């Protein structure tokens, strides 16, 4: 299952590392950026700081960033809920880190990799899906594809680049 650009994004509530529940669609006042990510993938780690910087830069503009870890923690213990909590306690995260232990949310969105980015507008419609930018190895890219999409949504426009190919480690599905 997957959703296409222009379709309504499914709403779910997932717990963050403090146990608080977050509705993926928020209160309808601004866009939401969903980032499927994890603790151990080099692509997710390489892009993490750029995504975190974007979360900080848009924090005052009614844009919510939510990171989601859906990896199978049984086979990949470094993606356990406890490991997520340790990581957030160790690092300065500007966004909640949500746990999708059933992988229902990742499947509903059709997430493929870590990272895989979805930008949803205030009405709950998917406006962008794909990579944060064109090169995990170039911090100067500053998650520009993600930023362009958020800027377009904030301006009430369609992102020029609405879909790119997500690049990263495959999501670790339960077997």
């Amino acid at each position, binding site marked *: 299952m997957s959703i296409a650009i222009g379709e309504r994004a499914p709403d779910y509530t997932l717990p963050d590392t403090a146990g608080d529940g977050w509705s993926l669609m928020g209160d309808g006042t601004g866009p939401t950026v969903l980032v499927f990510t994890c603790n151990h993938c080099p692509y997710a780690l*390489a892009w993490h700081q750029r995504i975190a910087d974007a979360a900080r830069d848009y924090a005052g503009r009614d844009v919510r960033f939510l990171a989601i870890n859906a990896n199978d923690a049984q086979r990949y213990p470094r993606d356990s809920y406890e490991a997520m909590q340790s990581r957030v306690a160790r690092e300065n995260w500007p966004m909640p880190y949500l746990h999708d232990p059933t992988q229902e949310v990742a499947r509903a969105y059709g997430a493929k990799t870590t990272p895989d980015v979805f930008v949803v507008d205030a009405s709950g419609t998917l406006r962008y899906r794909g990579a944060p930018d064109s090169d*995990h190895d170039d911090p100067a890219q500053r998650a520009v594809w993600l930023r362009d999409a958020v800027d377009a949504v904030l301006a009430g426009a369609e992102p020029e680049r609405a879909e790119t190919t997500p690049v990263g*480690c495959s999501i670790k599905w339960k077997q």
Partner: protein
Amino acid sequence: MDRGLSVELLWWEGCPSTERALAELRAVLDELNLPDEVTMREIRTDEEAEAVAFTGSPTILIDGVELMDALGRGAGDEPAGLNCRVYVRRDGRVSPTPDPDDLREALKGARP
């Protein structure tokens, strides 16, 4: 001709870094005037990964010695398994492929 230097690249299909790792490895081999023959070996199961202590894709063996072990910076407590491997470049950036300077140093060390 150089003696038969053995260079192996162990990879797993769940990780998209194989092509880049191979290109960077071949570029360094060329630069050092070493034969750019690289034996590709796919790791398909957790059991195979365990058997060869594969801690992630790509893993590069030079004369049978894992690249980071050859540099005295082994995989530490990374468990064997089907994963993408996390490398740290010399400037501190996390990367899915090894730093070419690390490849250079290890290959120079292995060369007679």
